């Protein structure tokens, strides 16, 4: 049946999240893997896994905006900062429970995102990129200088939150809420694009004038895209804030670029791509670090030049993906699947 492709005879089957039995099996395998990982990983790789979980949430958020709606954002770092500071300060200053603080941070970041999305109503492409670049600098400036609210350049350490009677301390206990949030973000992301809202967003990306002729309210959906995306990013930011200490240095322009790299390497306009890209971009520097440590005896200069090596690899990966596989890891995965499905034929 599936050897020549997956066919749909009605809308119900097309809207289904998993079309084939193989997809169901792979999903369950992924679930088992996620559940088993914390018991087998070393502490170092467990902390990497946690960072990947947070990155997945942020990457899905950015992909909703940039990949699915076609609005470039270089301000991701700024929105992460909004989420982290809102949630952290609500706990530290007002003593709110962590869960409430995180939810409020998500809502507040979504509001800020919608506000910064207003220029997007008039600007496209590179103009929007530059406008969001400005928002990145402005947000970080405010964070650094509104000392009476944010403690300025000092870091804030949030007290360890308690969840269902467990104090969240250490990577093993953090793994569960982070991965839970990442799974939730994935489910929300996948389902968003089965709904009318999601289809409207993609219509805005593909041809905004045609979309508006079809009755898609551009103003509403662009602002909504900024708000939804920033909501995800706010969640990622809030989690970063509670997981580690909050400092403005963690939300600079390079973070915005890292997230853009995730969705480009993973695949624009693909939830699976966001996940793969987040895994790839977070693993890359850690992998190089482990490689440098393992060859320390033979090539000591590799360790000395590690930061430059990580930077160069990051740059080269972005360039190579854009030139040779602009649709990213998601497309590579698709092609690999096709290859085995059709084997021994080429097509």
């Amino acid at each position, binding site marked *: 049946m599936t050897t020549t492709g997956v066919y749909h005879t009605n809308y119900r089957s097309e809207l289904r999240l998993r079309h084939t039995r193989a997809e169901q099996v792979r999903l369950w395998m992924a679930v088992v893997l996620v559940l088993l990982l914390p018991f087998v990983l070393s502490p170092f790789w467990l902390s990497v896994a946690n960072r990947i979980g947070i990155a997945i949430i942020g990457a899905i958020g950015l992909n909703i905006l940039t990949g699915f709606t076609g609005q470039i954002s270089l301000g991701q770092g700024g929105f992460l900062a909004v989420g982290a500071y809102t949630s952290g300060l609500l706990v530290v200053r007002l003593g709110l429970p962590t869960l409430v603080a995180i939810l409020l941070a998500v809502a507040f970041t979504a509001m800020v995102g919608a506000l910064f999305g207003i220029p997007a109503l008039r600007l496209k492409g590179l103009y929007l990129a*530059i*406008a969001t670049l400005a928002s990145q600098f*402005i947000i970080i400036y405010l964070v650094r200088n509104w000392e009476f609210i944010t403690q300025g350049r000092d870091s804030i350490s949030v007290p360890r939150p308690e969840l269902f009677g467990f104090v969240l301390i250490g990577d093993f206990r953090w793994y569960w809420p982070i991965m839970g949030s990442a799974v939730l973000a994935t489910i929300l992301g996948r389902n968003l694009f089965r709904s009318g809202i999601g289809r409207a967003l993609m219509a805005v990306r593909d041809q905004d004038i045609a979309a*508006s002729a079809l009755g898609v309210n551009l103003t509403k959906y662009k602002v909504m895209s900024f708000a939804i995306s920033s909501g995800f990013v706010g969640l990622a930011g809030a989690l970063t804030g509670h997981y580690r200490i909050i400092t403005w240095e963690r939300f600079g322009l390079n973070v915005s670029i890292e997230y853009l790299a995730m969705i480009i390497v993973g695949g624009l306009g693909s939830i699976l791509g966001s996940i793969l890209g987040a895994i790839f971009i977070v693993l890359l520097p850690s992998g190089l670090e482990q490689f440098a440590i393992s060859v320390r005896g033979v090539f000591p200069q590799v360790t000395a030049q590690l*930061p*430059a090596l990580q930077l160069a690899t*990051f740059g080269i990966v972005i360039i190579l993906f854009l030139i040779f596989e602009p649709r990213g890891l998601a497309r590579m995965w698709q092609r690999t699947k096709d290859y085995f499905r059709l084997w021994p034929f080429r097509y």
Partner: protein
Amino acid sequence: MQTFIQLTVSGLANGAILALAAVGFAIIFKATGVINFAQGSFMAVGAYMVYTAIADFGWPWPVALVFAAAVAIAVGLGTERFILRPMVGESAISVIMVTIGLAFFLEAALQFQFGTRPLRMAPFIPEGTVQILGVPLPMNRLVAIGLAALVLGAVGAFFRFSRNGIAMRAVADDQQAALTMGISVRRIFAMAWGIAAVTAMLAGVLVANIQGVSGNVALFGLLVFPVVILGGLDSIGGTIVGGLIVGLLIQYTAGYLGGGLQQVIPYILLVFILMVRPYGLFGEVRIERV
């Protein structure tokens, strides 16, 4: 009054350097439609090349400048041929990201070779101060203003009078028409990247001469965005006016208001301009509205 004059001269010097960096950016955008986020890295490459030619090879500074220009042209042409030509026809975000990737790569290459410690540029521009109207003014800033004016004038004359300059304007205006007139668009693209790389190199050297050779030269390059948006993305004259306005604004803010506000004031101006006049002061009114 003395403070005012000093701030004005520093502002004009920074503005002239910014204009120099931004003019290359504008040339690339006008001729090829590419937003080059690696412009700051081109500046840093230029600064490091002049540094290494003077300090490590012991060459006199005119030779060092020629050497740096040669490297800059090689980097510019290489970028055009191997990185941006395969990207023709891709979406804006892909083109932006590929130049960002290039910026990271160049930064890393410089780190490999020179480390991250800031280096002091061999002073080939006379140091010391001169008294003008009874106000002591640093010599290197005055020279920077003069040099930038000279180069910008040369670029302007190139576009106005030379055969290649006119061909480049023709390509910017209408690629198809230029092709039918027998202009090689590929050569024009290569030329645009070459000129942009050389002007960026000069800007980088001037920045490095004032604040030392380090990765911060590339950060200075981020300020080209407010400059080009203010002046109009496709206007050469606009980048000069934009550069001077942004340079003065930063210095006056630093001198009279302080508090780090000078770091964001260009971006606040940028957002304001995008809201009221997205095509800038002198840009062509061609922006697509939705």
